């Protein structure tokens, strides 16, 4: 099937109706394998396809989607998008971008091994991950939902301004729940890893981390309510940084929905804090040559040594501010119109090791897991989540802590970062979010 031809037919039909048009086609295949006690429990494999059609007529936008690529279905969907456009309000800033040169970069986002590997190898990965969790500690009693999943996708994008492009991408990932138990306590911990390439995920590492964390947190109790320093492990910070990235979009700034609004050029964070968004990061889970509207991917330094110097743009918000898109249009699927979002968003790592950061804390909490990060509010800056971890006393990790809350307003959190370690890892929590271990002072721990 000639997908460019299908996309072109959409453009022709729409331009005949005096509209700008964009056709997005995603073709893919996915594998999902769940194991338990050394056996496959669930195995799912399939291909999928979808077409998303965006039209803009006199500044009014309509969107329609289908997975039926017959000529009649494509025509109906295009007509539906045009009809819906009339329902929208006109907006002079709503246009499709002109094609711009794309960066030459080896993004390393496609691994042919994922397509050619036999299913048995993937089943074996999941089984090794389960075994690694069970062997991580004698107190690990079982695993649940031990899952390997991968996907191969090709994206095609064509618009009426002359843009036409496609790229292939892959991902492979695995996760599981490991439960540890002793006479007094039990608890479950998650392990997770995901990458664009098969060789970059390690079954043993994911399983071992989950098993070790579950076992080491046994016996965790709340500590007395107090203000203290927090050291975040990357796994515990990724959700927080994902929420933060939403406050750094031009849309949030333009629409009064960011706690950082009006602070461009100001010191909004400690000097050790630099945040970047990079859609050209080699091997990045969100890397791609062009964004969901066809604008070139780029790297943007958002907060530089504490100073807010840039935000993320798509075509619409860039038009509003009279600037260029930073190539940050994303798309959840062909069923959704593009939206402004971070790509690979991360806190720049520092020089210290995580052990050195912990060793520098006199009294504090080393947080290895948090819950309810979807409650973090990038508009108000409210931040209050539950935490699990280990008490730090004179730089040493001590007893496990559980069932406490940690809270601090986000603007204060940024200013209170006092150390950033060198162990940057990327996790899929609210996007492709990268965090090293880092320390924040002055956090309120809610306990007994």
């Amino acid at each position, binding site marked *: 099937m000639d997908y460019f031809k299908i996309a072109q037919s959409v453009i022709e039909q729409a331009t005949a109706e005096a509209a700008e048009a964009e056709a997005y086609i995603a073709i893919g295949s996915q594998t999902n394998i769940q194991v338990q006690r050394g056996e496959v429990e669930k*195995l799912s494999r399939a291909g999928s396809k979808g077409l998303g059609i965006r039209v803009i007529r006199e500044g009014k936008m309509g969107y329609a989607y289908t*997975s039926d690529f017959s000529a009649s279905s494509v025509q109906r969907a295009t007509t539906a998008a045009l009809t819906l456009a009339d329902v*929208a309000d006109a907006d002079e800033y709503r246009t499709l971008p002109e094609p711009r040169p794309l960066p030459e970069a080896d993004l390393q986002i496609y691994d042919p091994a994922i397509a050619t590997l036999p299913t048995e190898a993937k089943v074996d990965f999941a089984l090794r991950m389960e075994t690694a969790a069970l062997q991580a500690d004698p107190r690990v009693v*079982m695993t649940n939902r031990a899952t390997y999943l991968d996907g191969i996708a090709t994206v095609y994008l064509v618009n009426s301004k002359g843009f036409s492009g496609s790229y292939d991408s892959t991902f492979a990932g695995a996760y599981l729940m490991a439960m540890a138990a002793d006479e007094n306590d039990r608890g479950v911990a998650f392990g997770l890893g995901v990458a664009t390439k098969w060789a970059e995920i390690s079954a043993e590492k994911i399983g071992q981390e989950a098993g070790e964390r579950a076992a080491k947190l046994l016996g965790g109790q709340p500590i*007395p309510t107090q203000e203290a320093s927090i050291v975040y492990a990357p796994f515990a910070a990724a959700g927080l940084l994902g929420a933060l990235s939403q406050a750094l979009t031009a849309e949030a700034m333009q629409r009064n929905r960011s706690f950082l609004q009006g602070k461009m050029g100001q010191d909004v964070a400690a000097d050790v804090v630099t945040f970047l968004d990079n859609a050209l990061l080699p091997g990045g889970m969100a890397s791609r040559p062009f964004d969901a509207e066809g604008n070139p991917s780029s790297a943007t330094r958002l907060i530089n040594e504490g100073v807010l110097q840039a935000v993320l743009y798509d075509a619409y918000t860039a038009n509003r501010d009279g600037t260029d898109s930073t190539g940050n249009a994303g798309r959840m699927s062909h069923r959704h119109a593009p939206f402004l979002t971070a790509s690979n968003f991360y806190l720049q790592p520092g020089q210290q090791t995580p052990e050195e950061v912990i060793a520098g804390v006199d009294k504090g909490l080393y947080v290895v897991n948090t819950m309810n990060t979807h409650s973090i509010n990038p508009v108000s800056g409210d931040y209050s989540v539950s935490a699990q971890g280990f008490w730090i006393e004179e730089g040493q990790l001590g007893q496990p802590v559980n069932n*406490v809350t940690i*809270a601090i307003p986000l603007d204060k959190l940024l200013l209170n970062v006092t150390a950033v370690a060198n162990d940057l890892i990327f996790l899929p929590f609210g996007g492709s979010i990268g965090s090293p271990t880092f320390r924040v002072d002055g956090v*309120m721990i*809610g306990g007994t």
Partner: protein
Amino acid sequence: MIPIETVQKVLAAALKNGADLAELYLEDKDTLSLTLDDGRLEQATQGNDMGGGVRVFYGNTATYAYTDDLSEKALLEAAQAAAAAARGTNEARVTIDLTRRESGLLFPVQRPFDQMSAADKATILRQMDQAARAYHPAVTQVRASYNQTSRRVWIYNSEGVWAEDDREIIELVGVVTAQKGDVRQTMVGAIGGQMGLELLDRDPVAAIEDAAASAVLMLDSRPAPAGEMTVVINNGWGGVLFHEACGHCMEADFITQGLSAYAGLVGERVGPDFLTAVDDGTIPGRRGSIRFDDEGTPSQRTVLIENGILKEYMWDLTEARRMGRDSTGNGRRQSFRHMPMPRMTNTFIAAGPHDPEEIIRSVKKGLYAKKLGGGQVEIGRGDYVFAVVEGWLIEDGKLTAPVRGATLVGNGPDTLRQIDMIGTDEALDGGRGMCGKGQSARVSVGQPTVRVPKLTVGGTDREMTGMMR
């Protein structure tokens, strides 16, 4: 949707290698969504998603192959792909007698979605926007969305099951942002249901005005206190408490392997004798309701806890087969691209004996969780959290000062044992719950006003904790 002869051929092909059970699932989904933001109707999206999948069970394993091509050829290929790994000793059956199951449940649609134009639906969003902005000068931003989903499903299996369901869901959501100086607050107000345009009779403007009122109120709120205290949780959407504290722990896929904190406790006392909790997929008008689940099992009202005694869990076919018992009709899936798993439907604590006003009066010093956000749970120990987006300090039995967002932490089994007052004011939420468990499902939550003597509150304010050290 497809000829019954094709269904039989597909099921027979799926059984070729001696599988125990084969299932064909078909789905046809239409959606329309409109979003107004920053004063403009900006997004208008519609589309269709249609496809199906063949699932083959053998022993404790199930394989699944899905496709968006519903031709006989593509479905037979899916059946072959799913059957390829199956190794069983069952005889392949040539014909399967399919008997259409009828459901006695009525989920009436009085006014189908196509009776109102998209333009008129957009007008309702404009009314919501204007009302929210007019509510108070501190309102600086409004987003209002309309969403309608028509999801038709067909399920057939080699034991003769043939079930169909048609779920019409309509939702209106408003997000209001208010600002005073450098302080910003947002609040969500939503109504939704499984019905037609008659939802619009429920005054969407009132829902967004309520969100505006909350957002403005929170501008003058204090930070919530930090530490342990008595918490009273509001009725309706307050049911997020039970959903997180217990609901997930009672899904059979966390039970049968012994993972959940509630595994092996059927017949045990888990709460006071005035606590009864239910998962009920049969309630008309609710977004979590289903006539049949996505495996063709009729939905039902399942009493999870009765007078404080744990009675039952929520089952799908996979876990029910594992234990040699019946499914409770909780096998749901997000789409034809997903395999089912046990999911909640409409899950709530039933009315108790206490006067809701007396519950608040009974608290000397504590927190009233008037509006909740979402929550999360760790199911091994049953530790859960939920967010309070509008809270009030309770001092000497009276609501005294509004407090800003804080996460509340508790342990499910402990919370249930601790609950000491349950109000008479049972209610379900207004229609906005989305539950995530690797895939998403529409649900309702609910409860009466409930008092929990001791929960940990995650605010930033030390003063109100009354802790001496």
